[in-house]
């Protein structure tokens, strides 16, 4: 590769791109080329219709050879889109790619201005700045980082499960960490899935069992990630394993201990049935739980709380000795190259909208509660019952509870329209109740979903367009006595209605998990203003994050249905796989480095680094920057009191000459 001294014979090639009419309509491109041609060091200056096209790139390569160019500047679109393209063109022409500089005259100029003369003047100034700066560029080599072949997946819902199986089937080792005692997530709580009405458990449980039996998957349930250190390819993760007081290897799930528990009857609210059922202090979360191993609730078990129980459970377990009250919380450390975050969502707390009476009127349910009532393994073995044990003769669904509401959550939760229609159809199937759905807009864009909406209409489900104002037990007429009355404007009919029903189902929306911010900090990700984990690019990098080697899948990124969660999980697995199989990653060398001689060892840079990339060498009493961790943010460079930290591609002379160029 050609190199030359810092201030040696600089030969610059300049190219200004029309981008069709995107730039040329507002910037006089030939005039910019003409202007730059006269600047010091410029050997070639051209304008061209599409610099990113093959002929455009070949132009650069030819000129490098023909005119012995050793610097290249392209004025076109955002470096985010084509810096890589032009650097590759330089490399193909035999030039170190870091002798290249890009000027954005589209997003920063032609798209945001309306005066052609001024926009052209701005393009000239920006180009001049780049011409001045590129003179000081040095040949750099990207740093190369090896990728550890194992992957950590956080969250054992359908997204985490799917990603784990894909990677494991490709022969990669996976550790799946789940906070709850069983994997399965929200999907395990669903009865049927829209729009095909296939049984959720039937399609999910084979995948759950596969996780348990797969030789490449280590499953840690009842566990949480406590700490993440390192960088892409080389993460060290500490996982906290909570004591379940059961040896998972020894327990066979025979449930004799549960029968023997000193609590003769189930007494405590059962999480899986969202409080509609009861369980004992020793329990298996649900029949298809994976692992099929019991768990002891430390807040309820007399032995754990007081140490003074007869321990009939231990007796029942007999020779297996699976119950172990001495278990302690464990911290385990693993090394992985990539992390897939699939931590899911939390349901909106319906008591936050008191108008709808949840928690006040017993027959107001959430959609997840109804899901458990419909399910044959649920607390009513599939019978849809009111709290008093009677069958409802009329049911009202209220949509957008905690969605599309500036006072709670502004976003659309995307699944509630379809979810409610599915539950409505199941109610029509199981009972002869009248069902009315109160909606603002029916959103059924998924495959087969509009057809499902049509089926709901044909099934005789009533649809009333209007956001319900209030649910009350205040009766105004005899037919309202003893009922829950919904007051709503039927916006399509054009009048206010009072509709008495026996049961109300609130379609509660999705929210980021309560600890999403902690998880975000743990993994150095970003969140949108709503609290969902932020993808690197909303279209082009939907499962990548701003931290290399960390991917997101499923509802932790935003509300979505099962097919979309699976699709993202597949994408995240493929992203991880592509890094693993390549074996290494090349990183932009725009990293900071320390002129060791000048470092005073004051350590002020260390706490400032957002990526914990700086450590301290005690023997030399100097700060050390780990290039693989450095993201090139420049915080340490600006803060170093002795000026001993510099940054590749952002050296002082590069920046100052760039400023001079703009101001000339």
């Amino acid at each position: 590769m050609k190199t030359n001294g810092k201030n040696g014979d600089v030969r610059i090639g300049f190219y200004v791109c029309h981008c069709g009419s995107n730039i040329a309509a507002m910037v006089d491109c030939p005039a910019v080329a003409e202007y730059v041609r006269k600047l010091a060091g410029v050997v070639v200056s051209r304008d061209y219709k599409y610099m990113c096209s093959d002929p455009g790139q070949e132009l650069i390569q030819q000129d490098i050879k023909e005119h012995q160019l050793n610097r290249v500047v392209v004025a076109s679109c955002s470096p985010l889109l084509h810096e890589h393209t032009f650097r590759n063109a330089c490399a193909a022409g035999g030039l170190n790619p870091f002798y290249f500089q890009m000027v954005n005259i589209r997003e920063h100029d032609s798209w945001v201005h309306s005066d052609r003369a001024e926009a052209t003047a701005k393009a000239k100034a920006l180009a001049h700045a780049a011409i001045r700066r590129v003179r000081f560029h040095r040949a750099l080599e990207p740093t190369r980082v090896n990728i550890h072949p194992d992957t950590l997946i956080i969250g054992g819902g359908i997204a985490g499960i799917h990603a784990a199986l894909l990677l494991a089937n490709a022969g990669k080792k996976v550790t799946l960490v789940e906070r709850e005692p069983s994997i399965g997530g929200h999907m395990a709580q669903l009865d049927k899935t829209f729009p095909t009405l296939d049984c959720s458990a039937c399609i999910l449980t084979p995948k759950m069992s596969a996780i348990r039996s797969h030789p490449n998957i280590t499953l840690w349930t009842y566990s949480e990630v406590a700490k993440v250190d390192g960088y892409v390819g080389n993460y060290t993760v500490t996982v906290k394993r909570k004591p379940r007081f059961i040896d998972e290897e020894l327990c066979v799930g025979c449930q004799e201990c549960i029968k023997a528990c000193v609590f003769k009857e189930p007494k405590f609210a059962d999480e899986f049935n969202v409080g509609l059922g009861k369980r004992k202090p020793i329990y298996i979360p649900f029949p298809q739980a994976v692992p099929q191993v019991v768990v002891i609730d430390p807040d309820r078990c007399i032995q754990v709380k007081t140490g003074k129980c007869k321990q009939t459970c231990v007796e029942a377990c007999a020779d297996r000795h699976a119950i172990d009250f001495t278990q302690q919380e464990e911290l385990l450390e693993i090394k992985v190259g990539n992390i897939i975050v699939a931590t899911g969502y939390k349901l909106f707390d319906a008591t936050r909208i008191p108008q709808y009476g949840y928690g006040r009127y017993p027959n107001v349910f959430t959609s997840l509660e109804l899901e458990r009532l419909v399910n044959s393994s649920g607390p009513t073995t599939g019978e849809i019952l009111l709290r008093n044990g009677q069958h409802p003769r009329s049911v009202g669904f209220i949509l957008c509870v905690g969605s599309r509401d500036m006072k709670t959550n502004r976003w659309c939760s995307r699944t509630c329209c379809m979810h409610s229609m599915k539950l409505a159809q199941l109610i029509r199937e199981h009972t002869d109740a009248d069902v009315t759905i109160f909606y603002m807009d029916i959103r059924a864009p998924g495959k087969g979903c509009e057809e499902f909406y049509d089926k709901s209409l044909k099934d005789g489900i009533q649809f009333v367009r209007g956001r319900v104002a209030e649910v009350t037990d205040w009766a105004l007429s005899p037919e309202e006595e003893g009922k829950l009355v919904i007051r709503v404007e039927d916006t399509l009919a054009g009048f206010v209605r009072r509709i008495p029903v026996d049961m109300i189902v609130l379609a509660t929306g999705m929210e980021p998990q309560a600890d999403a911010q902690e998880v975000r900090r743990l993994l150095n990700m970003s969140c949108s203003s709503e609290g969902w984990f932020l993808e690197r690019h909303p279209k082009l990098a939907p499962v990548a994050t701003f931290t290399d080697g960390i991917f997101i899948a499923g509802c932790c990124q935003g509300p979505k249905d099962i097919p979309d969660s699976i699709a993202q999980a597949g994408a995240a697995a493929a992203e991880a796989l592509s890094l693993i199989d390549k074996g290494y990653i090349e990183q932009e060398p725009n990293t900071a480095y320390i002129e060791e001689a000048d470092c005073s060892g004051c350590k002020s840079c260390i706490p400032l680094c957002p990526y914990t990339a700086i450590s301290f060498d005690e023997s030399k009493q100097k700060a050390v920057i780990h290039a693989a961790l450095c993201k090139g943010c420049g915080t340490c460079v600006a803060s170093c009191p002795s000026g001993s930290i510099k940054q590749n591609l952002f050296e002082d002379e590069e920046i100052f000459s760039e400023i001079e160029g703009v101001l000339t």
Partner: protein
Amino acid sequence: MKYSYFPGCSLKGLGRAYEESLLPVMKHLGVELQELEDWNCCGATAYMSVDEAKAGVLAARNLAIAEQNGGHDLLTPCSACYLVLNKTKHNIADFPDIRDRIHCALRSANLTYTGSTRVRHPLDILVHDVGLDVIKEKVVRPLKGLKVAPYYGCQVVRPYSTFDDAWNPTTMDRLLATLGAEVVHYPLKTKCCGGSLTGTLPEAGLRMSYILLKEAVRRGADVIATICPLCQFNMDAYHDQIDRRWGPTRIATVYFTQLMGLAFGFSEKELGLQRNFIPMKPRPVPPVAA
């Protein structure tokens, strides 16, 4: 404890029993009230329908006078006044164009307003400044066995209340319970009484008052407690018309301050209770407290 006191026009007219009960009760609790010097009408809802800028000026004059006379919190018993004064205060803080116009008008009368005066409802002051424990100590004739429907109406709880929930306010419930009364579940506690529509459009307005009365009777209440002079008037003075239209629903509506006064041992006359169209049912004289 000292407050500026903004009675508002109603408390000098149709709602004079509110003032007649509020003043002795506050005095009894050691709360000093100083009537705002040369206060003027807040503008109520009617003026806002005519000219928003002038309505703001009316309210702002009172806020400015309060600020210049010691800057005490402004105790405002009437719901409409409470809303309008608070709304003006918020508008001055939030909207520069309104602020400029009001400041300009104030300047023409050599008045200024920096925005510091706090507008507060007696319920807020009684529950949060005085305290329920202090009130409890003053109760000599507990309202034992008296079933009260707590009725808040609109404009105190909506939209500017800072001291209670807009949907399910509870300060008066707790206050009444402290007096020994039995508070009945009253789901209409924040519904509208009809406001001035009872006079201008009785078909709609009176029906709203009627629904409130009927539901209180249905819930087994002996009396309705209110915090607003217009609500009290609507639910008390129109009984003959309501009876004619929809049948009798005889239940008295009194100010919460009157119930406090009764519990503190004041006579009905001292509290203006004789001014009710529908009198509160006479209560058996309880045995003298030990």
